[in-house]
């Protein structure tokens, strides 16, 4: 199933323009295909889940549904912010399930064409290259485009390992 979706994303990328939501986690600029983004919320009251993977920030009430919120700081091994009040909850819809991602700041929505995206560099420092789809270079800034499916899969692995 996830392979199928991957191909779907690939097809969309090849087709030409795509929109990406860009945000920051720590000092990294990241982007996610807008097709996966359902909504962006203020950081809401998060309930911690004892026993869960450290990659999971907690759960929130999203209009009556309990939604898991991931903490990408943990995933990318970046020390999390102390003050969470400015954080945003980026709610993704992946394979029918809604998942929140706790980001420090939502920057922009960019429209990029496939030709503007480069393959991920082989030495991408702090971040685990597994999650990275491609890289978009925008003036001085590099935006790392994430593959949400792989992000999720990595969290899954972590849960089962725990």
């Amino acid at each position, binding site marked *: 199933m996830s392979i199928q979706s991957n191909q779907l994303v690939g097809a969309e990328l090849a087709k030409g323009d795509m929109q990406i939501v860009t945000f920051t986690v720590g000092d990294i600029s990241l982007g996610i295909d807008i097709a996966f983004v359902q909504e962006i919320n203020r950081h809401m*009251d998060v*309930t*911690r*889940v*004892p*026993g*869960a*993977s450290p990659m*999971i920030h907690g*759960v*929130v*009430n999203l209009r*009556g*549904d*309990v*939604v*898991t919120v*991931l903490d990408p700081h943990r995933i990318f091994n970046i020390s999390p912010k102390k003050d969470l009040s400015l954080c945003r909850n980026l709610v993704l819809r992946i394979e029918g*399930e*809604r*998942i929140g991602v706790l980001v420090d700041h939502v920057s922009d929505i960019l429209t990029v064409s496939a030709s503007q995206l480069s393959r991920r560099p082989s030495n991408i420092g702090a971040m685990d290259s597994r999650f990275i789809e491609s890289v978009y270079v925008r003036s001085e800034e590099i935006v790392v485009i994430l593959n949400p499916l792989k992000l999720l899969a990595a*969290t*899954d692995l972590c*849960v089962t390992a725990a």
Partner: protein
Amino acid sequence: MDDGELLGEFVEESREHLGDIEMQLLQIEALGDGINDDLVNTVFRAIHSIKGAAGFLGLTQINDVAHRLENVLGKIREHQFVPDPYNVDVMLKAADRLRKLIKSVATSNETDNSELIAKLDALLADDRAFSPKQAASTSSKVVDDIAACHSTTGEASLEAAAETGKRGRAKSPRKPRKQNLHAGTDKTPSPKGASKRNPTKMTDELAIADEDPTRRVAEKLDEIASGLDQERDAAVTPAAVDSTIKAPASSSQSNTAQPSAEATIRVGVRVLDRLMNLAGELVLSRNQLLRALGEHSDRSTSLDAIVGGLDQVTTELQETIMQTRMQPIGNVFNKFPRVIRDLSSTLGKQISLQMEGNEVEVDKTIVEAIADPLTHLIRNSCDHGIETPSVRQASGKPECGNVLLRAFHQAGKVMIEITDDGAGMDPHRLRQKAVEKGLYSQAAADQLSDRDAVNLIFAPGFSTAAVVTAVSGRGVGMDVVRTNIEKLGGSVEVTSVHGKGSKISITLPLTLAIVPSMIVAVGDRRYALPQANIAELVRTDGVEKRIERVSSSEVLRLRGSLIPLVRLRQILGMPSDDVKDECSESQLVVVEAGRSRFALAVDRVLDSEEIVVKPLGRHLNNLPLLAGATILGDGRVAMILDAAGIVNCVKLSSDADRDDAEQSVAASVESKDDIQRLVLMSDGPKDHFAVSMDIVSRIERVPVTEIDQVGDRRVLKYRGGTLQLLAISDVVPVVSTDETEFTYVIVFRVYGHEVGLIAPHLNDIRDCSIINSMETCRQPGVAGITVIDGRSTRLLDLYGLCEIARPEWFDNKKSTDTDAQPTRILVCEDSAFFRNFLVRMLVEQGFKVTDGENGEEGWSLLTEHPTEFDIVVTDVEMPELDGLGLTRRIRADGRFNAMPIIALTSLADSDSVQRGLEAGVTEYQVKMNKPELLAGIERLTKKGRK
């Protein structure tokens, strides 16, 4: 209505028809030749309408099978055919086939059912061959009947039928469509054609047919009528509203033969689920509203009234919607008579199933989800539990095994019990197996109590039957059964008496959607704990209920029992609060999960709320401590604690009496043998004593003035003689003895002497558990110390007491025992307390004593050293093999014909004495009556030696 819808309707309706058919066929089978016409008619009509509709829809295979089945039923209806297990079997198979075909209706025509059809046809043929007498005797009558039928009823009903057909047509505004339908359904004769053609055809058939003609006529008529029925149904269009309503109503009436006065409609489950969710949301919103309003103290009273109304309506709405989802558990139970019937024949066993509580209603999701686990458990009971008739006979049971399936409500939960009177389970073998399978080390397995051992069957990869059969497979299912039941928020456990049967108890919640819960807090986090798990709330007050430490774990002392304490903060991995002292006042919640009980320490208990369980995302699916999440009144998410998960997490032993930390009263009641009827008395506020009631002859209350002091002895002038008295303080150290005006005298006999024990206060006479007595505190005259009502109570050994106070009575007794060869005694007693008591006492008397924990152990000791025992002293009530069982075995073995057996019991009523004597017991004695026992041993061994 297009064809697809029509087909859907057919499937739906046919399922309804087939829903009860199993039960009905089984009933028909049970009645045998006492045919219940109504019942047979009901089944006949059900099959008949399936046949009709299938024919109409061009479902040839379904039509064929139904038609043949109908033929057989028709014959039963005419009392021309006696249902027996064999032919009902074929009918059941046909019903099964129909269900299968209807399930995959689209491909049904491609299936081949000729074999089954041939079987059904063969039934009729067989019948003719086997009961020619019947046919002959009825033939003349039948001819008359046909004549009558044909001339009057037949024509009349044909006319009537045709009439209906016409009307149906007249109503139909879409003629072309109907014809179209006809084209596809050549099997169903058109009503006109039928009425014209069939009478003649029938007469022809009658002429040649020597099988029951009446049935044929009836069948043809029905066929025609059904054809008309179909016409009418098909003719109905959405526009013809009135007839649409009538049609299903009338058809359902005729098919189920249950006049349904209540109007019912079919509603999709999806709609109900959605409704349920919405109701859940409404409950949440109401909770939020109530909370928000609660924060405003200055709200007006009119607003209060409105909110109150909303509150009430919401609650009612929720309850009503819940009701729509409730289904009688009988929906699941009904399939079991068939399961049992089939199993009986496959396994070559005789099993009868009784069911109780079919009407108990449970949430639909639970009814659905419990079907498979229940089936598995029932199969298991039949396969592993119930023995074959020969084995049953050999062990003195009726050949036919019983399985009782029972559902009932208990404390807001649904209990389902499966009880069988089969072989039960052997805890030893299970332990052994657990070791063999590598699930437990030998030491760990030995530590398991019998109760835990039988529950090993739910451990992954466990199979109890020596021979693995196709029925219950390799036992892999049992852990799946448990997992599935636990997924539903229920629990399952098994209790078993080896040789007598097993009982599997399933506890289920009434519903899964809304759970009344208690909200507890640790720090600033809140958790929901389902009220079903909460036994009580306790605030430690430092006096009666105390938190104590037993080695490294904490326990709560509550009304005389010790409950393990679990700190929520700790198990959730939260930093412990420095401000609070560990043992300071905490709010405690006594939680029950299955068999385990523990006290959960939380910071605060906030509120009770009806929470709506929300599923957690897949990342959080398998967390051990949590059962899900909910949204609280303030909109925040709270986690739901899983009591069973906590038990697993802290590895509480479910077995209270093995666990040092626990001494739950409930658990000790289980062990019947450690219950003694005790006389509770006290000398003063600090000296509490107990005496076994079994050896007390009587108790009297006398004024102190009547007691005379003679030298250093006290006597009571009594019925013309004197009664020697003993004061406890004469022998046992006592803090103080109260001076009272009256005193109680407990009278008992020892070696022919009647003695009275002086007790200033008599507190109670009742059954007490003395399981926790500490034998280390044994001293002369005291058998042990136990805790009764929270007070240390010394259990007096009256004989020991007398021995000290009146040594002269015992002098001559001891000397007789100094034989050259000590008598060798085998003692079997499961209670450690009594066993040690007996062994010690007998050893003191100079006997050579070997002891076993139960009959089985005793038996192996005896068979290993067949010549090394002179006498057997055994308890009656024991696990594994009881005293009577042991006696029977001993008596059955030629080597031990002359072996004297003394059975000891605390229940020496005449019935049990009789049973004991029948089993071959030489003497029956009451426990703890030392002189009697010694005398008995002496008497019997002397006799034995001669």
